């Protein structure tokens, strides 16, 4: 068995997600990502089960594995009990671990995501938090969200939240002792190591692309090149 396939096989999502694919294409037929992007989960499962190391490496370095929305619609329908979405998660995990994600545009988006989400979790205890929700990054959220964010204390108070308050309730300030526990969990389970690895690889890529790191973070968050979509 090749090295990459071997690494994938250790991932529990891979163990659960890939039994034997009969290449029927049912997953692709139901997949919302396949309708939108140049994406075909059937092909991914087939590539992986062929155990061709060079092809698996190409996949780990491609945009392809980053097109999935992890909706798991494919899981309900696969006649062989595979879970394409879980196999994708294991491929992404390995791509992140090996630094291959920086080889593709959609893969490079892993850095702004990591910065935003793990930053929120470790600093606030929430994945998403009003203190870091910038309406300018979310024009789709509309004038009403801008109003909420510009009047946080009043509006959240009006809606019965306990914004930044003590004790239970929505949007309460999560006590520091609990944030310390989250940090300890990240340290013990490889979460912190992963954040550092993704940051290091991204910094190297930013230098290679001739960008300073803030510029790279913004660019990877916002830029979309032509060629990803089915209707192009």
């Amino acid at each position, binding site marked *: 068995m090749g090295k990459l396939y071997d690494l994938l096989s250790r991932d529990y999502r891979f163990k659960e997600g890939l039994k034997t694919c009969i290449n029927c294409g049912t997953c692709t037929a139901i997949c919302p990502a396949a309708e939108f992007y140049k994406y075909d989960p059937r092909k991914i499962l087939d590539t992986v089960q062929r155990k061709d190391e060079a092809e698996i490496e190409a996949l780990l370095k491609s945009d392809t594995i980053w097109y999935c929305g992890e909706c798991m619609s494919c899981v309900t329908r696969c006649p062989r009990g595979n879970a394409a979405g879980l196999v994708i998660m294991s491929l992404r995990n390995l791509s992140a671990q090996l630094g291959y994600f920086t080889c593709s545009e959609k893969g490079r988006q892993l850095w702004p995501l990591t910065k935003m989400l793990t930053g929120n979790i470790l600093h606030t205890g929430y994945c998403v938090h009003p203190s870091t929700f910038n309406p300018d990054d979310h024009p789709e959220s509309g004038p009403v*969200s801008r109003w909420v964010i510009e009047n946080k204390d009043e509006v959240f108070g009006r809606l019965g939240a306990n914004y930044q308050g003590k004790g239970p309730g929505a949007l309460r300030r*999560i006590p520091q002792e609990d944030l310390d526990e989250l940090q300890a*969990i990240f340290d013990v389970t490889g979460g912190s190591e992963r954040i550092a690895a993704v940051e290091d690889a991204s910094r190297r890529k930013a230098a290679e692309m001739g960008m300073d790191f803030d510029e790279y973070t913004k660019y990877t968050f916002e830029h979309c090149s032509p060629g990803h979509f089915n209707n192009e």
Partner: protein
Amino acid sequence: MIYQGKQKIWADYQKEIPDNHWFYVRSCIRQNFFPASEKYFLTICRDMLGRDIYETEHHTTCAGIAYHCDTIPQETAMTVVARQFALMTEAGYDSLVTSCITSFGNYTEILETWREFPELEAKIREQLWKACRREFEKPKYLAHASDLMYKLRGEIAERAQYRLVSRATGEPLRVVEHIGCHYSKMFPHKGVGGAEYPCVLSGMAEAWGGQVIDYPERRHCCGYGFRQYHVKANRGYSLSNTHKKFESMEPFHPDLILTNCPGCPYFLDRWQYVIAEMEGKTYGQNGYGIPALTYEELAGLVLGVDPWDLGLQVHQVAIEPLLDKIGIDYDPARKYLGMNEKKIKTPGLPTTLKCC
């Protein structure tokens, strides 16, 4: 025999939901975008219907969004969830109810993975002990908050001040629903009605007087897609999927969309605003959108709670046409007040989507 066989098959689609004593964990998205829904979940279950729902300030995110955006390893996500189980155990509960479908899917996936691979559960127990000095029992029952509201739908109907019926015609309102992918697509036997006949929302809508309308893309994803929404460059994915759902439900003239997931009511609301602004198209009557509600918002309206206490002012699609249809009283002047009736600046208005 045939009848018994059918009963047996249907039993696979049922879910045991204990009646009382739940440990409650919140949703990151809902706290940010629909905090009043969580408040009214507790108000309805505890204060109106007398159930024991316990919440501790020490619980945190389940890290589900970070997990599904592939930013943390599986073991990190599992250990964060193991800590929530430890808080539940320490508080003396064995049933966990979560306000979030992503969490519900995450917890379910973790428990199922541990069932299949006990050595992984053992490793997570060790890691949790090392990081937090905590131990846990696994929940005996795991529910999504809507499961509980579904269970209580009859008691809510008994106390209803309004029914989901048009005041003008006496006809039931036309309700379309959106279940949310992670509720039952991955583990169908964990949701009420499974993946084929999910009735958690339709059961509520019908119990409160509405008529549930089927539409072709009823089970299609709302398009959240985790990284496909959170990264600005990818958001067209999210919009396109929701657009597909709107186009599919439009010919059936729904009066409202009832949603299950934390993200779904946000997307089904805000993408109507975006489509109106970009293309001039609106899906409701007379230039309005179709209101997309959480199940607590709908339960609250039926129970006669003031719409502005329920947070219906933080939707971008105006709720007033629906309130008028049912005949619910509201004071337009109080819509955008702050705390203690304080007057604050009101929000800007969209240019195309009609708002009140």
